[in-house]
């Protein structure tokens, strides 16, 4: 495991006022978006009883734990404890947070809890992008990259010539002529990854057809990777009733 910036969700898919649980290297995170449209990435753990905050719910600019309703503001500070409504909540009660940023239509987290000065994310914003989907694969991030560095860029609106590939620690680009897709790879655990896929280009151009094509491309890539890993789920057909 290396400290750095990793993708945790597609920005557009994370609706205002919602939360979701996810993982980085097996550690549980909650990703949520407040009513002012800001996204947050925290440790998925209520300091009270250790309940996962992603099981809770977002109300306005607070996220509340499902167990006892403790509410945390956008700075991860506990502000309200329903069992003690008159209590001024001590500042020591707060959730551990990950530095996070939205870039390329993706929410990224720096996997060092409560880090004050994370390193620069290392690549510039590019706008506009067209989000496609998050795709969850039963294979390690290393196996995913093994496949990505051999993959062809799907033909969209302006294909031209052989696929040019480049990558950083958590991001791959596949480019052919004017077509380019960006694939951010989230290591969920040693044996599971998530791909967050966007098209470099405007939704005005790519909504619909291009999204479908890239999504189908992703599903084919998933089959290939899981097939190579001997993925049991593809081999063992559904349990019949």
């Amino acid at each position, binding site marked *: 495991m290396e400290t750095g910036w990793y993708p945790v969700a597609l920005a557009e898919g994370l609706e205002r006022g919602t939360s979701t649980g996810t993982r980085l290297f097996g550690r549980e995170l909650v990703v949520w978006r407040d009513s002012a449209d800001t996204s947050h990435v925290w440790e998925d753990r209520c300091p009270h009883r250790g309940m996962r905050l992603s099981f809770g719910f977002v109300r306005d600019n607070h996220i509340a734990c499902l167990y006892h309703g403790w509410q945390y503001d956008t700075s991860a500070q506990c502000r309200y404890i329903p069992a003690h409504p008159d209590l001024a909540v001590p500042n020591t009660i707060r959730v551990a947070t990950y530095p996070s940023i939205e870039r390329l239509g993706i929410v990224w987290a720096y996997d060092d809890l409560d880090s004050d000065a994370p390193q620069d994310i290392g690549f510039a914003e590019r706008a506009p992008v067209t989000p496609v*989907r998050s795709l969850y694969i039963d294979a390690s991030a290393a196996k995913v990259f093994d496949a990505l560095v051999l993959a062809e860029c799907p033909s969209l609106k302006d294909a031209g010539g052989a696929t040019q590939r480049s990558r950083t620690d958590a991001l791959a680009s596949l480019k052919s002529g004017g077509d380019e897709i960006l694939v951010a790879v989230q290591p969920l655990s040693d044996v599971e990854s998530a791909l967050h896929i966007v098209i470099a280009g405007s939704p005005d151009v790519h909504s619909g057809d291009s999204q479908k094509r890239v999504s189908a491309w992703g599903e084919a890539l998933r089959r290939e990777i899981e097939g190579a890993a001997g993925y049991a789920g593809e081999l063992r057909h*559904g*349990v019949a009733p």
Partner: protein
Amino acid sequence: MSEITLYDFELDENCYKVRLLLSVLGLSYRKVAVNMVPGREHLAVALMTLNPRGSLPILTNGEFVLSEAEAIMTYLARAYDDGNTWLPAEPKGHGTVAMWLQFASRDLHAAYLARRLAMFDEPGDEVALGLAARRAFRLMEDHMTAREFDRAAWFVGDNPSLADLALFPAIALSRDFGIEHEAYPALRRWMRLLRAIPGFMTMPGISDYY
């Protein structure tokens, strides 16, 4: 007028499918609580006479007796949904809803068994059931992802249908048997919309808050 009666076990997801539909259709009915676990009352003489398959739910309406959640849902929709919104009359929509109802009873049966194993300690291969349940959820996720590209919010057509109601319980309850919603972002968005359907109700294991 004859009275609709539902033989119901509160913790059973198939009974919940029917309660959910009765609720969104705004139908009043009599509920007979059956102690399925641990009482196994569904296998006692009285209910076996009504339904020799020994399954719940069972719905009666006067002399008419019907079992199997998806079949009961199609009956209720035809009988009480005059606008055909929940079960389209149009052939393609009808066929596609029927396909997803089949999916709910067949492909998602693994999820049903996985939950019975986890909650009631019933027999089963935990690993095989978990894999089969995840495979079914993935098919649903891929379908709803594709639907979003067409700016469609429901499994079939422009409105919620029986398909949505029949598919919802297994994924909404998946944490009962250790499958998180992490890998299903499109299904999360769909579940959130589904909760806003007028008449929506929860069951134990499905949070009132979200």
